[in-house]
């Protein structure tokens, strides 16, 4: 299983803050996970096909889209940050 978290504008657009999914067979990195999520269609497709900037974190560390995903990790997706 992997835990998925969504924040801020993305969380609202998807209507989901978090979920747990079985590790999909054809997913090995962030880019592939985004493509897998986009296949859900609707808002998922809009958000995960790269039109809007998204950041990703694995186990609470910022990563790029080539970062490998292993079973058991926590993956978060969110818009560019705007604190401070």
């Amino acid at each position, binding site marked *: 299983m992997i835990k998925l978290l969504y*924040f*801020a*504008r993305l969380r609202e657009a998807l209507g989901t803050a978090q979920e747990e999914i079985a590790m999909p067979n054809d997913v090995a990195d962030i880019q592939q996970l985004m493509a897998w999520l986009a296949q859900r269609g609707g808002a998922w497709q809009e958000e995960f096909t790269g039109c809007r900037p998204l950041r990703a974190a694995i186990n609470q560390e910022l990563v790029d889209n080539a970062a490998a995903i292993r079973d058991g990790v926590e993956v978060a997706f*969110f818009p560019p*940050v705007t*604190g*401070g």
Partner: protein
Amino acid sequence: MIKVQHEDFDAGAEMARMRMARPDVGAVAAFIGQVRDLNEGSKVSGMTLEHYPGMTEKALEGIVERAKGRWDIFDALVIHRIGALKPLDQIVLVVVTGAHRGEAFAACEYIMDYLKTEAPFWKKEQNDAGERWVEARASDDDAKQRWSESD
């Protein structure tokens, strides 16, 4: 030290505590961020700060550790507020102590530049037209970039 909290903070008390923590402190540099009542032409009535519990603290600790590795400073404090805020509310405090001002100033600016671009906080503004998520600014990425150019 890192604090992520709903409550307001007393910048003067925090600075005094850090200034008095050791007698070889010769410089205290600080930054306070405050909610403005105007953003991109819209009157702002308030905002909500969302964050990623756990990652926020880790990210801020990492930024402070990198600053300590880069400059000869004694200590650094970051307090960032979350939840509902209104104009004139304080959002963030960074305090850096060191022997001399140059290192303290630079480390304080470095911490803010990385906080703005890497710490997982998001602002949702309330204005005349309703609510909107604040968009990230390219100028914040540029501000961070200058630190890697000088490596």
